[in-house]
């Protein structure tokens, strides 16, 4: 595993039925730079999402069909209501 964890969300265009190996090959990455537990997510618009290291996300800029990194914000439950700092 690379020193920086695979925290960057990127997408790439691939043929239907593509696998994570296909994505890794297409992007020219090593498996160390990819979150293999997360895998390859078909977004059903011809593109696929995967999680890679920040360094890998930087390296794939310019690879045809690759986009990102995309925001991967923290998400929280909308409740229970928490008081404000002055309450």
């Amino acid at each position, binding site marked *: 595993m690379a020193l920086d964890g695979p925290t960057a969300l990127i997408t790439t265009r691939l043929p239907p039925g593509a696998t994570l190996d296909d994505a890794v090959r297409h992007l020219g990455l090593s498996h160390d730079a990819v979150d293999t537990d997360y895998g390859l997510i078909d977004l059903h618009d011809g593109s696929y999402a995967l999680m890679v290291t920040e360094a890998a996300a930087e390296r794939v800029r310019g690879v045809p069909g690759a986009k990102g990194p995309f925001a991967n914000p923290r998400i929280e439950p909308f*409740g229970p209501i928490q008081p404000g700092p002055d309450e």
Partner: protein
Amino acid sequence: MRVMIQMRPEPDMVAAVIDPNVTMTAHDVAGGLRGVEIDPTFVPVAAPRPMPVRAGGDPLSMEQSFTFSRAPEHASVLVRGEIHDYDPASRLSMLALSHPEIVGVSADPVISTTPTCGGDKPVGNWREIEQFFAELGADGLDGTGVALAIVDTGINAQHVNNESGRTITIDAARSWNPPGVVGQPGKFPVDHGSMCAFDAMIAAPKATFLDLPVLQSSHEGATVMDGLLSDAVAGFAHLWGLLETMPQDKRALVVSNSWGSFSPQWDFPPGHPGNYSDNPAHPFNLMVTALESAGADVLFAAGNCGRDCPDGRCQFTDRPIGGANSHPRALSIGGVDTRGDRVGYSSQGPGRLSRSKPDVCSYTHFDGSHAFGADEPDTGTSAACPVAAGVVAAIRSQWPAAKLPPHALRTLLQRTADDRGAAGFDFDYGFGIVNVPVIMDALRRRKKNGFR
């Protein structure tokens, strides 16, 4: 926007308004004011004209003594009405310009008790909401055969059963954990997800629940209950795969999402190609589109950043309904208490991906699951969303997506909603409160007309 309109009609009209023996209506005075919905229940009021006591006094200064004249040639008449919320400043200017008899327009803010807020005691209980929805069960719409995914912190089935007196059905085989999350479907600690499941069961007690504990993410720096949006991308991909296994003519999957992002600090700024909040091309927003296109009903809580009493975590300075919570193909659910009043923390529109948000409101802040303690209400738009998801799941038990596509179901909920706030759509209540009796009327008409 509610407004008071000050008019100067002909003196004989003013005289009639002043005369206690004559009954004048708002339409007598202001009928035909295009662009304004005149309130017919408000009896026109004669407003006296202030006149400086000292001859030659400054007619525009308030710093002097006045006498007040109610003579018909001096007085004006006040009526009450509403104008559309969109671009109110321009509308107010145009209103005064296009009607010479109008001499003034002013805001008419709602004077009411403080809305229900975070620390308040429960308003009503879940049995009252069950009664609001009673017609669903009477027609056999109870969620049978419908998959209802709770994308949250995980469900504790035992707690839901104990509190509801019912038995929740959890489909463990079709549930899903994010990578690294341990725990079995239906056996997670009692928390927010159990509240959501309980609330969805109010209208859909026979639904088959799918447990997706996306907010149990184990990422670095995680708090007790949070996750990352990438986990939700993977969870939705799992749900898409499930839909594909359902026969086309029987697809019925409802996805309840009582979560979102409280802060723009975790996002790229709007306009950046990687942004989430305002970007329909973000992978998660694409996934919502894909899931809805495949036949799922996707519901998101509008959020708890309402202007009256926002959640302490809210850090958006404006337009807090963003990302998938404002997705055009999802229902964005605001919150009202059991009296039908908007709770003060329910986020207001416009939304970021789609302006017309929230879509509709549903019930929250009631005595329900006790997931947070015996005296604690089910709160937040977090509760409103699964309550509405239960209604959708109940409808789906006889109306699969092949017969009533997700977009048509959204329209049905909007069109039948009990209109509150400003007339028609507004950014507080959306189209209004989910209204089961009117939904049932519409479905019965649809059935009678051969649409199933």
